[in-house]
């Protein structure tokens, strides 16, 4: 029996995107549906998941559990070997959770999905960002 081919990384969801999912954002839901249709995967830094859980006061833990169990999402922890890159990125975005998202996106060559692109304006010219508004 052969292993299924790995899903292609399509995007990184930051804290604001995870929070929006909890609040039933149409944009995040539709994007995940498309990524799943294309057999892709959206990466969620563990730090962003934890921060979003904190910001939604865990009132909607069931929605977070749905996101974690979604076939097109994967939770990713920071790689300890990459601490210099994470520290350098942290200097640019001013928050550890957003640094995880920004570095993961740069490392994987994809965009960060966020509600506020301004956080990433100093990361690679602020161009690797997919801003949504709903």
């Amino acid at each position, binding site marked *: 029996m052969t292993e299924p081919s790995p899903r292609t990384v*399509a*995007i990184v969801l930051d804290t604001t995107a995870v929070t929006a999912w909890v609040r039933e954002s*149409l*944009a995040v839901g*539709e*994007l995940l*549906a*498309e*990524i799943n*249709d*294309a057999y892709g995967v959206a990466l969620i830094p563990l730090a962003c998941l934890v921060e979003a859980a904190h910001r939604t006061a865990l009132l909607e833990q069931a929605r977070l559990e749905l996101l974690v169990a979604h076939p097109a999402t994967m939770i990713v922890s920071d790689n300890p070997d*990459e601490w*210099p*890159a994470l*520290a*350098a*990125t*942290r*200097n*640019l975005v001013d928050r550890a959770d957003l640094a995880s998202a920004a*570095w993961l996106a*740069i*490392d994987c*060559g*994809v*965009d960060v999905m966020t509600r506020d692109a301004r956080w990433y304006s100093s990361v*690679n010219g602020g*161009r*690797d960002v*997919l801003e949504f508004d709903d």
Partner: protein
Amino acid sequence: MEPDTSVEQQDDQFWDEQSQLTLRRSGVARWRRVLAERAEAREGRSAETAAFRERLRLGPAAQA
């Protein structure tokens, strides 16, 4: 009391579900286009992004 034989409510419900499905497919298709456009734009600056990535790998001191 006469049973309700009207199909209007069912029709409304049917069309409502169809409309929602159509809208959802439309929304998903929109994101498909957005992701494709974004990937194409990133491809055009891949060398620049690779250089930025390598600078970050050097750590915060290299950014100063």
